[in-house]
């Protein structure tokens, strides 16, 4: 980054902060702070829904996913359009009619207070842990740009996020998200165009030859993480729970001026989401091809961390890995050129042999990257060796024109703040309405006290997220880690709501204990996956199993609870 980038970055950041603060300076009652104004149009709702779920993680982590595993991750979203249709047809009209603040208030009205509390606690648990993961997004951006240590950057960023959220609220989040999304998309398109100008003809074929363009896999293998079937069914349940019961989403669309606005906002997402994710994944796959033609691609994309070890006590070991990677990369480039020369030739056998040699060379480079990660882990067991989240930010800071780099970093950073703000805001809302008010019912009409409490809870969850991120390490990249955590809870929460909507004879006690049993089943399956290989299947299926178990247990338990008085009567 040069001086121009820094001027653009600081001006943009200050501009966004000043605009948000000025537009939301009179946010002083709970309704506006928590739900935003009820006059939001469908375009704002649609973009707000997209922005809350997309955020900087999408723009950092999904290109990295495309870089590492190809575009098959897009199947994760195959259930989403169907889920949004169901949310529009069933969930949204009910929430609007009841005029609830949170989705869990509905559970209180339909069942009882303990079931409402359980739904809220499940949400708070999974979203609280997720917020500890998503706080990495802005920290990765800043640590890459400034070369700071990641843990210190997390603490610094976390403090900014808490202040931003506590002083802003929903309206500020909505206001700035719309513009941030527009600029980020502009930046992504710019990055795509820059990539195309730097890539040789036939780049898509290179990506295809190296297994990066397998978008749809119709196999039934349950241990494959992303297939058409796991995406369609697991993704349907994941999305249904996310859009229908997760307060961070529900909060976006119940704020519409009319039912129509919420529905159109969600349908906008149903049409937009898969093409958008595909574009971002494809961008990652093309960045992978780009590095095939570069003279010295990094062996580990968190360059700050790698450089620290190059300069550290085990310098010789890390330099040797660097040299080995450079040599193997040179060999791979030779094989790539041979294959590209033969690709459109008249000798299919020679082309196939050259392609096999290229794939073998790629496997050798991958093996050195694994060796580099093992060396890092040996030096520091707590280090996060999943470097794919650094691929795209590294590309931006080294390849895009100056000025554009500053603008893109600013809006990605702002989007990360906005998304974190939305998440903490939803946690604060649920903690206030579903927990605090439950134990302090007399405070319901004291608006100022409610707002103070919502802000206090928001700050609490912000601090929790910082502590989690600093002290807990995880093996997945950001986008997969958040999806896995969600899948552990979402199925059961969805099951509670489906029982509420469709099984009107089931009462609160039955669904409460059934949800606890179903959640215990999912947690057990999750921890057994490394012990029993037959239980190792895609995390997307947890959503289906959790939901089915919750509904089934509820129906069984309700029938048992009903038959007990009859038995007692018969004995009498």
């Amino acid at each position, binding site marked *: 980054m040069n001086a121009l980038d820094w001027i653009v970055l600081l001006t943009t950041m200050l501009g966004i902060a000043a605009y948000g603060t000025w537009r939301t300076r009179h946010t002083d009652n709970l309704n506006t702070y928590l739900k935003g104004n009820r006059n939001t149009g469908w375009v704002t709702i649609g973009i707000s829904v997209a922005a809350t779920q997309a955020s900087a993680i999408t723009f950092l982590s999904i290109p990295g996913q495309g870089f590492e595993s190809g575009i098959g991750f*897009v199947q994760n979203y*195959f259930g989403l*359009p*169907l889920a*949004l*249709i169901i949310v*529009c*047809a*069933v969930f949204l*009209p*009910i929430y*609007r*009619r*009841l005029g609830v603040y949170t989705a869990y208030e509905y559970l209180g009205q*339909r069942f009882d207070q303990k079931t409402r509390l359980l739904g809220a606690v499940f949400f708070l648990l999974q979203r609280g842990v997720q917020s500890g993961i998503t706080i990495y997004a802005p920290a990765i951006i800043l640590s890459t740009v400034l070369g700071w240590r990641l843990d210190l950057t997390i603490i610094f960023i976390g403090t900014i996020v808490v202040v931003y959220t506590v002083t802003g609220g929903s309206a500020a989040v909505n206001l700035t998200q719309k513009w941030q999304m527009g600029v980020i998309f502009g930046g992504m398109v710019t990055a795509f165009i820059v990539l195309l100008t730097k890539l040789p003809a036939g780049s*898509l*074929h290179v*990506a*295809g030859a190296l*297994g990066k*363009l*397998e*978008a*749809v896999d*119709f196999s039934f293998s349950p241990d494959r993480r992303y297939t*058409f079937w796991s995406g369609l069914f697991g993704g349907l349940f994941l999305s249904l729970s996310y859009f229908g019961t997760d307060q961070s989403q529900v909060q976006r669309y119940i704020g519409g001026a*009319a*039912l*129509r606005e919420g*529905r*159109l906002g969600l*349908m906008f997402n*149903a*049409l937009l989401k*898969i*093409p958008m994710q*595909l574009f971002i994944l494809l961008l990652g796959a093309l960045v992978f091809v780009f590095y095939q033609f570069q003279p010295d691609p990094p062996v580990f994309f968190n360059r700050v961390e790698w450089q620290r070890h190059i300069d550290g006590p085990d310098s010789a070991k890390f330099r040797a890995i660097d040299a080995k990677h450079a040599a193997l990369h040179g060999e791979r480039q030779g094989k790539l050129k041979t294959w590209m020369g033969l690709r459109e030739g008249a000798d299919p056998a020679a082309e196939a042999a050259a392609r096999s040699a290229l794939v073998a060379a790629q496997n050798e480079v991958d093996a050195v990257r694994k060796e580099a990660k093992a060396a890092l882990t040996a030096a520091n067991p707590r280090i996060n060796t999943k470097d794919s989240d650094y691929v795209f930010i590294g590309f931006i800071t080294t390849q895009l024109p100056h000025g554009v780099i500053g603008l893109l970093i600013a809006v990605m950073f702002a989007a990360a703040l906005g998304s974190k703000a939305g998440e903490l805001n939803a946690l604060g809302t649920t903690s206030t309405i579903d927990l605090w008010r439950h134990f302090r019912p007399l405070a319901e009409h004291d608006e100022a006290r409610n707002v103070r409490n919502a802000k206090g809870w928001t700050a609490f969850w912000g601090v929790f997220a910082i502590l989690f991120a600093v002290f807990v390490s995880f093996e997945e990249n950001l986008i997969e880690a958040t999806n896995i955590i969600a899948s552990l809870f979402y199925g059961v929460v969805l099951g509670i709501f489906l029982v*509420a*909507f*469709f*099984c*009107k004879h089931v009462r609160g006690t039955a669904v409460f204990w059934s949800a606890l049993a179903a959640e215990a089943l999912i947690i057990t399956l999750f921890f057994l996956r490394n012990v029993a290989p037959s239980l190792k299947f895609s995390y997307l299926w947890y959503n289906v199993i959790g939901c089915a178990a919750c509904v089934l247990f509820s129906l069984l338990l309700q029938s048992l609870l009903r038959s007990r008085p009859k038995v007692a009567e018969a004995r009498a």
Partner: protein
Amino acid sequence: MKPSIPPDPSDKEAPGVPGFRTWGSVYLFVFVAFILLVIALAIFSRVYA
């Protein structure tokens, strides 16, 4: 199984989108667009794999 809350008159509101008279037709359009997208992706995979 039926929803435990009776339908509201506002559910019958027209979507107000040119070319679509009912919400059912909007949902059908989204569903068909999804199917076409999956077919296009499957073809794309075969061409480049």
